[in-house]
């Protein structure tokens, strides 16, 4: 199963932290730091698989992709296919791209809640649930439709800040 999905930038600042097991905040941050330290020093020519995250137990593999300033990291156990997860990261990123049109780090900061909703449509309970991009964006968009008529503001308060950045 997928134990955790992390997105952080090159400096190790978290943009999404999602664990599929109950883990305390302190340990979560520790794991984030550990994985960042392992991943950040690897040049892009090396392979996308890595072992050795001790805080997550011995049976864990890190599978990551590096896009521009961001690292997308999935921590999985041995029951997952490595290349499959690698593809899944690609699907997730493509889904983000559809939602935000040329997704960039700022999108992830200002819509950190929406990232969660998108991820929910791709991975649930540590298992891949849907890989069809059309279906993913349909689910997320229809959820958004439900919000609009009910709420006077299309986004949350922090979303309004976007114009100033």
């Amino acid at each position, binding site marked *: 199963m997928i134990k955790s999905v992390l997105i952080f930038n090159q400096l190790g600042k978290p943009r999404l932290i999602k664990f599929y097991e109950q883990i305390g905040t302190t340990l979560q941050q520790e794991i984030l730091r550990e994985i960042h330290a392992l991943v950040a020093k690897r040049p892009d020519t090396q392979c996308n698989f890595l072992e050795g995250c001790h805080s997550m137990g011995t049976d864990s593999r890190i599978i990551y992709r590096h896009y521009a300033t961001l690292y997308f990291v999935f921590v999985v156990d041995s029951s997952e296919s*490595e290349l499959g997860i690698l*593809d899944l990261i690609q699907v997730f990123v493509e889904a983000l791209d559809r939602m935000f049109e040329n997704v960039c780090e700022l999108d992830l900061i200002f819509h950190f809640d929406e990232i969660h*909703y998108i991820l929910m449509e791709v991975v649930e309970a540590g*298992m*891949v649930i849907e890989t069809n991009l059309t279906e993913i964006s349909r689910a997320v968009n229809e959820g958004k439709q439900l919000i609009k008529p009910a*709420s006077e503001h299309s986004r949350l308060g*922090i979303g309004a800040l976007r114009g100033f950045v």
Partner: protein
Amino acid sequence: MCVEPSLNGYNRKKYVCKLVYMALLGYEVSFGHREAVDLVNSTKYSEKQIGYLAISLLMEEDADYGRMVVAAMRRDIHDTNEFNVSLALNAVSNICTREIAEVLTQDIVAQLLSPVASMFIKKKAALCLLRLLRRFPEAVNAQQWAARVIPYLGHRDIGVTLSVASLVTALAQQFPEDTRKAASFAVRRLKSLVIDNEYAAEYIYYKVPAPWLQIKLLRLLQYFPAPESPELRSLLLSILRHIIDVSQDTPRELQQMNAQYSILFEAINLGIQLDIDQGLMQECAVLLGRFITSREINVRYLGLETMAHLAAYIDSLDTIKTYQGVIIQSLRDRDVSVRRRALDLLYSMCDVSSAKTIVSELLRHMVVADFTLREEMALKVAILTEKYATEYSWYVDVMMRLVSLAGDHMGDEVWHRIVQVILGNEELQLYACKIALQTLKAPVCHESALKVSAYVLGEFGHLIANAPDCAPVDQLKALQSKMASGSQSARAVALTTVGKFINLFPEIKTLCLRVLDRYRGALDAELQQRACEYYALATLESEDLMPTVFEEMPPFPERRSALMSRLLKREADTEDQRTWVFGGREINRERKLQKAGKTVEDSEEPPVAAVPQLLEVPEQTRFVADGGQTPEELARVAKSKRHYARLLWENDGILYDGDEIQVGLVAQYKPPAGRVGVFLGNKSTAPIYDISIHVACEESSEKQLVVQQATGQGPLPDSLMPLGQARVFFDIKCIDVFATAPTLRIAYTMAGAPTVSELQMPVTIAHFIDPVTITVADFFSRWKQLGDAAIGEAQNVLKTPFLSTDSGAIQWLRNVVGGAGFALIQGADAEPDNIVGVGIATTENAGRFGCLIRVEPKPAHGLTR
């Protein structure tokens, strides 16, 4: 936090959202949770959404507001708006407390099986159940609904199939019986996907149809035994073949290559696991050989990993060995992940012929390897060396180098094991002493090496005392020179050695005493105590205490190597039951047997070989203790296992009884030779073709046992009609004592499906033992003789729980011992139930030697000695 009572929905949402963001940044957020619960209870979707998100990220399992959350979830699961249902299901899979499992499971199952729920809900419900099943298997009553979930594997919606496949995979591991049907569903779904190309266009990912579903299904099938029906079998085979054929040419685009290869690797894994077709596997080996030289690093990595899996199962390692050079090269890859996989592969593919090269390569690499890798490397080198050592000197050389090179990075198990092995093998001791002294005399001596050397010299220093430069004084001096720089624990071992020297070489007693005297004032309590005690012992008036205390250590009882347990422990600790581990075939087979749900007592038979050159009694027989189990529980494999066990002490009977064929055996033994007739009967209603029957010996016993097809008999018939019978005779010659039984391989084609059955032949060393009658007194004098020499004795305690319940068990045991070729001596022992037997084993090269056996059943404890 002070909350205004009149906080409106928008502001509440805003504040909760900020809390979630703070949690993301790593701050502990332990307040405001109740606001999130309020949001969950709101009727507005936007508020509900944020509320559930906050709860799934922030809520602790034991939160006091848990009850309120469960109530809200329950309401939402039954909501008519499917997005509310989806939110609730998502939250369930994130929080998942025991209460939720108990209260909501039925509702979620209903959603999954409901005829009206949309695909969107069904797939979420399936994964939700999976999460609950993993967390609280006892609370969800999985057996009630498992069978009804399985048909969803054939669902036309790929999303639903995908999540159900995940759920069924987990169910299959917990309830293999209830989910048996899933295999056929999975195979058929794969067929429609791979061969018939039935799928929606949106599921094509870079030209590959639904790779995730393919992977999931291929993975799911690995948890089931190979399908029994020939139709399914051939279907599965054609699917695998199709996948492999498609991958023959390398796709251009990176994403497509990833997707395609991910399926291919999974298909190969499945092929290996089911052990369907060796020809296909050899082809895979070639394909993998191409991958490990690939320029694409991910492919290289996975190629190595899959090849390690292959090496752990495949019959012939020859194809893999042709890539040995490349694999060793990969050990120097720039990427540590690749290096690690290369190490695993080398460990898996190692056998007697390649052991020397591989071990020496690993040692060479040890110096430059990463620190994180060294411990595992050291363990693996130690295990391989012990397992495949053919010369004693090689073993000692390698191990000494190993401790010198990697001493810092390995646990104490390694050096403990070396000492155990040296102590257990007399031939090793002289050579080990020489090397130990050399090690001590070298300018630099690693601390673990110091410990081993000190221990060995202390025990066997006298063996080389007469050689030049090896006089007791030289030994002591060498030891002393390294003692000063050693660590506290190493010095402690060395001090004991000095103590032993006093006993071994009285001529250097004064020198030794001087050393001890110096350490009597050591600051460290342990050293001081040792020095003082040894000093006192040596200066004691009475002369007999010293030799008693420092008597030579007895050989260690043969037991499972601590190294192995340690290595396996590193790989345990997982929710998913692994279907294989790194390492040779034997270890994986053993795992398979254990999985069959049998209590196979891997026992070293307790006979005693009275020949000195046989130090480790390799008579290894598997006795199956199968009392107290109902036949319904036993799978077919297990049944054949029982047939096998019975044939161990009976000369004719049925070895295998299946739906299609029946295999019977008739055996005659005239030590050291024997003849075994194999009868193959067709039980089915269709004729079978292309029959071939072969017997192969395990590599380890190839030299000890020769099995040949007897001359002067007609060829096998080409086909076998229903109820027809064919037979072949084999001549067996026992050259030396052997440990593993040969394998009988029967291949035939039925209704177009080739089938191969592998059965273990019930041929053990026990069949080459003739009963001899001797007197009771004679028996005991010989028994004692053995006991004194402490050689060639193997003792084992078997747990036999049925003993305490079954009164006929003693008689059964008697039959076993009698059937194994021992003459029983009645009334030899004081204890009436004990069974005592004598036999002579005859082998062609090792000659004849006597074997004594003594079985002491202890019904009260359920133990047999």
